[in-house]
């Protein structure tokens, strides 16, 4: 094995960290955690600002083919995720950059690639995902929204839900039932639409901590152009699967944990309890060390995913492991950190908060990675069925 980055990668890493370190200084005060980019105007503006800074450097098209404006490598993309995670920065549109772009590259028409890839690479257009429906969460088979073809257009009706950032997004990508009589897996169409289109209504679903991340999106007779179909008409299921195949390394989440650990260690060194630094409490040392071991373990596995992606292997099962493990580690850290803060564990971002309120923030925000992008329960099913070859329940 070889864990070493090439000299070029080391240099790139340094460059990326430097840019991110600078950007971090411009973070608005209200930006308290990884979902703050969606929570308010300031957060979204900062997201767009960072995105522009990255775009300038070609960092939103890392690993793409040159002909579509690609720069760098898949590994560079991982390095950017790492640095963004470490500094808790937005700026890379998870829907546009991480999900749609590779899907378009794999399954989009030349026309649609030429139209949208540059807009994604330049951070001109931000996307949202129109996916789950009230009765189709984990299971897309329950989908009821419809797209009825009329010449060059589809008339789309229905309700989508859990649409992260849909209240700020410029465009959306979604799947709709396009053939009421079609067989399962051959009755959906994958279409892009402008979120400003007539008939699109976005309504916020407040997150448990009061922040605005999720939305419901109502589609009433929305005209969507057939030229924005990705893949084939009625073959949206296949496109969904292509998209699901572009699992991320979750390096940003992992490096968020790395940073959280560093900050917590500093806090323990600086905070005295009963006249001694908290860091000298054997129980605290043991717990934080245990946590550090887990972080390092998942960090190395995330690098294995990156390594696989870099050689165009998918590593889907390892990626699922990273997703499950890192998100549950975040949950555990929220618990440990709030516990160790004693009564201060409950304090929200404010002048009284320790660690800028991050412990309380994680205590609630941890569910975002746990239940989104295929809940961890679903991930465990996937590992069991496709990774281990265990029989699927009937």
């Amino acid at each position, binding site marked *: 094995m070889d864990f070493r980055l090439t000299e070029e990668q080391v240099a790139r890493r340094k460059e990326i960290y430097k840019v991110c370190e600078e950007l971090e200084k411009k973070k608005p005060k209200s930006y308290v955690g990884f979902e703050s980019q969606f929570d308010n105007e300031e957060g979204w503006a900062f997201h767009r600002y960072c995105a522009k800074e990255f775009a300038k450097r070609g960092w939103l098209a890392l690993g793409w083919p040159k002909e579509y404006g690609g720069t760098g490598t898949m590994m560079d993309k991982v390095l950017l995720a790492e640095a963004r995670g470490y500094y808790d920065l937005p700026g890379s549109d998870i829907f546009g950059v991480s999900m749609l772009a590779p899907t378009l590259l794999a399954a989009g028409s030349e026309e649609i690639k030429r139209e949208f890839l540059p807009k994604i690479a330049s951070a001109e257009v931000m996307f949202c995902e129109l996916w*789950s429906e009230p*009765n189709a*969460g*984990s*299971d897309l*088979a*329950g989908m009821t929204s419809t797209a009825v073809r009329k010449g060059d257009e589809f008339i789309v009706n229905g309700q989508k*839900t*859990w649409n992260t950032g849909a209240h700020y997004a410029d465009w959306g990508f979604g799947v709709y039932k396009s053939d009421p009589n079609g067989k399962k897996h051959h009755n959906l169409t994958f279409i892009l639409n402008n979120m400003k289109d007539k008939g699109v209504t976005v309504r916020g*679903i*407040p*997150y*448990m*901590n*009061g922040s605005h991340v*999720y939305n419901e999106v109502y589609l009433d007779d929305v005209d969507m152009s057939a030229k924005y179909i990705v893949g084939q008409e009625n073959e949206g299921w296949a496109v969904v699967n292509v998209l699901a195949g572009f699992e991320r390394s979750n390096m940003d989440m992992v490096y968020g944990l790395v940073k959280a650990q560093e900050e917590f260690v500093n806090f323990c060194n600086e905070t005295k*309890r*009963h006249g001694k630094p908290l860091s000298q409490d054997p*129980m605290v040392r043991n717990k934080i060390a245990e946590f550090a071991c887990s972080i390092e373990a998942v960090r190395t596995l995330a690098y294995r995913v990156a390594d696989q992606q870099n050689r165009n292997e998918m590593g889907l099962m390892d990626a699922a492991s990273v997703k499950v493990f890192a998100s549950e580690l975040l*949950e555990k850290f929220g*618990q440990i950190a*709030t*516990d160790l*803060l*004693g*009564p*201060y*564990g*409950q*304090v*929200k*971002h*404010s002048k*009284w908060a320790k660690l800028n309120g991050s412990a*309380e923030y994680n*205590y*609630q925000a941890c*569910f*975002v990675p*746990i*239940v*989104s992008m295929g*809940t*961890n*329960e679903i991930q*465990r099913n996937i590992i069991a069925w496709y990774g281990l070859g265990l029989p699927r*329940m009937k």
Partner: protein
Amino acid sequence: MDLRYSEQQEILKKSARDFLTKECPKAKVRELENDAKGYDPALWQKMGELGWLGFNIPEDYEGMGYSFEDLAMHIEEVGKNILPGPYISTVVNTFAIVEAGTEEQKKDLLPKISNGNCILTLAWLEDNGLFDASGITLKAVHKGNDYVLNGTKMFVDGAHVANNMIVVARTKDGSGEDGITLFLIDAKAAGIKTEVIPTIALDHLCEVVFKDVAVPAKDVLGKVDKGWPILQMLIRKGSILKSAESFGGLQAVFEMTVAYAKERVQYDRPIGAFQALQHKMSDMWITLGTSKYLLYEAAWKESEGEPNSKEASMTKAYINEAYKLITALGVKLHGGIGTSSDHDVPLYYRRAKAADTAYGSTDYHRELVAQQIGMK
């Protein structure tokens, strides 16, 4: 031995349930989270009329004189429904007056509390966040007939709306259990500045700054320098009652989760048919059972006047963790919908974190348990 709620207790519980379902729906709970006061004065009045604020006040002082166990069962229902405001604080702190107050203090305050005209809170913790005696540093200096208080208290429940406040202060140099004195003061006294701290449960815990607050010597609660045992008693009773509240919350989340699992269909079946989820709900059930009798053993002993500080600490340490764990599971079993503040489960999840440090954290109580199981 009879480990059932008595018929009378069932009636007590049902009446609390019915009242709260009607008078304190979740819409009101949400509204009060962002309300400046954080409680509903009209509702408080009604609770006073029903005797809820005098459960543990002797009949001589216009209270109901119920047993501690009855009170715990009642508070189980309060926790099941959620009731914003310093209700449990007031009830718990009342014990200090009942057990350590002078006749004058009792006559003055107990009827008011019982009738819903007095909110009573406890200014205990400080910015060091410690639960043991060494955490008490706020100074009360004897000057003439007064004591003069200077310092800052943290996490004082509803201080901004309280009428009276028990302040835990240091009247002697040192950091031990001796030299701590409780003062029963007017919460609006000159020199007191109160600010609401934003907390996970939005439960209106306050920072209270005391600047040259003069307190007449007659307002000492109990004896000078000997306040710690009274505070310990409050911590013990508060631990049990807070655990009763949490246990109610546990049940609410359990019931909601099982109901949702029966109703929510995915992959052509209710999600409750999935074994992985079933086993988690079975674990919730097991946790409910183990919590319940641990709690009521402690409550029953308190009623009977038997030594129970070990059981009280065990209860608090165990249910603290159970409540956090089960509500987190509840969120996850609900999936996306369980993460929204529009849903009820997160109301309990956030309160589980808040409950966890009220009257002492898990680690604090585990240390008390260690001492009482003979760890030298």
